[in-house]
């Protein structure tokens, strides 16, 4: 419409995107309004499903900790991650060592 960003291969228009988003949001809200209205908040209907067990009061017992997020991803790339985390050893001399290594590789490439 009125403010397109032309890349060399197409264009991007913020306001068109926002209009489409508004239309989609309207559809979603209309679909939600077709639900049942006899819903009581604060009673047992509101609780999460915890496998049939009693939901603990303390929130920290039912939260998945951040260390176990994306376990499948890290497990699948275990070989890559072991090498990569070993390289980030925290030894200050390696920080300078990588810079000297990059400078020498670049020097060989540029000077030849």
């Amino acid at each position, binding site marked *: 419409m009125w403010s397109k960003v032309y890349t060399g291969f197409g264009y991007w228009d913020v306001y068109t995107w926002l209009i489409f988003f508004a239309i989609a949001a309207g559809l979603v809200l209309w679909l939600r309004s077709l639900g049942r209205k006899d819903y009581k908040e604060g009673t047992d209907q509101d609780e999460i499903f915890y496998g049939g067990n009693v939901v603990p009061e303390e929130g920290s017992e039912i939260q998945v900790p951040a260390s176990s997020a994306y376990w499948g991803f890290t497990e699948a790339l275990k070989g890559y991650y072991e090498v990569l985390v070993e390289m980030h050893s925290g*030894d*200050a001399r390696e920080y300078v060592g990588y810079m000297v290594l990059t400078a020498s590789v670049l020097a060989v490439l540029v000077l030849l």
Partner: protein
Amino acid sequence: MRKQEARRPAMTGNMPFLVVGILFFLGLYAILFERNLIKIAIGITLLEASANLLLIVLGYRTGGSIPVFTLAGDVQTMTLPTPQALTLTAIVIGLATSALLLSLIMMLYKHYGTLDVREIRRLRG
């Protein structure tokens, strides 16, 4: 005395640049392969010294006198004054850096109890 004049002059020529290179690699070796933090700091000082020496040597002109108009007398060439100014700035910067580096090393010793760079690795991964 005759023998000394007949020899090639060793002060000019490429000798100073060789010394710059030797100092540079000595400093780099000290930073990369020494374990004691103080020795790493000394390596950094050597590196700074090599850079300053390079700047000074670049300003020299063979047979040149001091670059002061009123005191040089009747000469053909003067050494260049600009790299001397650059080197003074770089020496002062090196001084500030060394002071901060040594005080950080002192605080590291107070916190970790060791000056071994392989022990000071709580931040990793």
